């Protein structure tokens, strides 16, 4: 009995000691976070309520309340426009990117010849799309017009979609649907290039579906359609949320983002207070949109009970 007690006591103290080692592992990160993340974060929050003047060696602050926010939202000529444009674009692009990447991931998960090559090609955007190269490619695609975009719009043009629909005998499609389809086909370039990491994540999720589930579905005679909705979809649903969030963050911080450019341009005028308030409005919107997405998505997500 005493042996057991002493063993328990020493185990407890061992756990505690181990906990202290935890601080050891995190120590460097904690210092760094304090200096390079938390202090700047709080500073920028304070700045957004102040008029900031930079002197040599120090910054002097004057409390002006909500004036900076007011300036950013009502007076600045470009900020609100850029913000609205970007919000709208994120709104329609995000679901498309997620649906598209899920679709591609399901295909890339199947067995066929040349799968490795196909995967390598579809992951290419991951290594290119975050940099300035993408901005140039994107710009050239639109500036060359006839030689650039025409190349694949011959493949995915709206006319072709329209003709395909006619061929299938679908005439009574409403105009909204038509414009939606044409928007998608016109922006196929942007969507494909924005979904590299999302495909990667979905593929990882798909590979984690237990083979027993697949076997059971086969024995029960499930069709591919049923299999997708009853097995695949519930299993990847946590990743749909992750991908939604990732896509939103990605589009808010992408190099082609106009709001970011505006903020950078203002920095050259040393208007630190205004920039801080702009950045915080921006962050507030990101946080709000992620909150809404999480709230909605959580109702549809299936978590496997471990």
């Amino acid at each position, binding site marked *: 009995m005493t042996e057991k007690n002493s063993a328990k006591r020493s185990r407890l103290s061992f756990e505690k000691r*181990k906990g202290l080692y*935890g*601080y*050891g*592992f*995190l120590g*460097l*990160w*904690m*210092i*760094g*976070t304090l*200096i*390079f*993340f938390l202090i*700047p*974060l709080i*500073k920028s929050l304070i700045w957004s309520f102040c008029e900031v003047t*930079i002197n040599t*060696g120090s*910054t002097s602050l004057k409390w002006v309340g909500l004036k900076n926010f007011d300036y950013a939202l009502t007076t600045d000529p470009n900020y609100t426009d850029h913000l609205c444009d970007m919000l709208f674009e994120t709104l329609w692009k995000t679901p498309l990117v997620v649906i598209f990447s899920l679709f591609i991931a399901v295909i890339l998960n199947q067995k066929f010849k040349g799968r*490795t090559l196909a*995967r*390598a*090609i*579809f*992951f*290419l*955007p991951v*290594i*290119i799309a*975050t*940099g*300035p*190269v993408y901005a*140039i*490619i994107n710009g*050239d695609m639109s*500036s060359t017009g006839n030689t*650039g975009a025409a190349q*694949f719009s011959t*493949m*995915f043009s709206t006319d072709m979609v329209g003709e395909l629909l006619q061929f299938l005998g679908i005439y009574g499609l409403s105009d909204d649907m038509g414009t939606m389809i044409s928007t998608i086909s016109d922006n196929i*370039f942007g969507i494909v290039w924005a979904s590299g990491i999302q495909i*990667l994540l979905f*593929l*990882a999720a798909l*590979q984690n579906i237990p083979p027993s589930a697949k076997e059971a579905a086969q024995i029960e005679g499930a069709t591919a359609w049923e299999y997708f909705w009853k097995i695949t979809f519930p299993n990847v649903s946590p*990743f749909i949320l992750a991908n939604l969030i990732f896509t939103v963050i990605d589009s808010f*911080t992408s190099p082609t983002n106009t709001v*970011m450019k505006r903020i*950078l341009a203002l*920095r050259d005028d040393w208007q*630190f207070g205004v920039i*801080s308030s702009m*950045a915080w409005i*921006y*962050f507030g919107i*990101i946080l709000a949109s*992620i909150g809404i997405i999480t709230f909605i998505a959580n109702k549809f997500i299936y978590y496997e009970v471990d």
Partner: protein
Amino acid sequence: MTDTTDAVVKSDKEIGSGITPKDAKRIRMENMSHEEKSYLRRRSLMEMVWRFFRFVILFGLGFVIMYPLLYMISCAFRDRSDMTDPTVMWIPRHFTLEIMKETLDAMDFWNTLKTTLILNVGCAFVQVLSCAVTGYGFARFRFKGKNLMFAIVIMMILIPPQVISLPLYTQFRHFGIGEFSVNLIDNMLTMYLPAMTGNGIRAGLMILIFRQFFRGLPKELEDAAYIDGCGPFRTFIQVMIPNAASAFLTVFLFSVVWYWNDYYVSASFFNNTRTIALMLQNLDTELKQRLFNSVTVELSSREQIVWKEAGCLLSITPILLLYVCLQKYFTEGIERSGLVG
């Protein structure tokens, strides 16, 4: 369904009944009822149609992805006049290396590459190490305030760098306390210090990946090491790191890519240090200065494309080579890196 038929054929072979697979199939077909046959026929037809569609979809979208790269290669080796020649689409009429040379010169490519390797790849490497240590701390130890700290990690992922880049700038401008401050702007430490402490570019995401990965490793590994008298730090270095090699490689690749492509952070903190991403951003003005000796020369945007695309090609080639060599780890390592669960 094709799997099952394959299995039957194989088993015939194993028994060694002397029937060729073709005969076996014929015999099986003869014994089938009408419904079974039509079912199989429908099945194989569906399979064929799907295969065809899959090929069309993958080929089309693969083309959309490859298109800019092919276009890049095509543009980089053609003469300026070919851009305005409507008959030239893919294959240049005047093949030339001149544009490539000019771009190499304008970007000061080899020096820039050296800077980029020292700065960006070095930072990427350092950051992987610091994030791994932090991720391990989050994965395996229990201590007070851990949840709060993890919330900070999540915040690091969510908060765009634009929000904190300005205060960070002033902080680096006068780095230190009171009198003892140094100007770190244009110093490589502005990138190295955050990377060393796990606060660099997308560090939050990397910490999260490592945490997930280390949580997935069996606890017995460490317990065995502890029983043998290994301390936690030594256990981490000697037991956990060798086991996490694939995760390290994957995250390192991501890290290199993110640092390589970054120009927001480097544009904020550097005036004279030139990385490849920054040079590519300023290629326009640089070219005009070097080629025509003035910044105000008007060049049509179509004609500029040749240099821009050549610059793009130069700046992605190193990372593309890395990707091709390590493609296997990039596309398959992620599945084992513990992002899932």
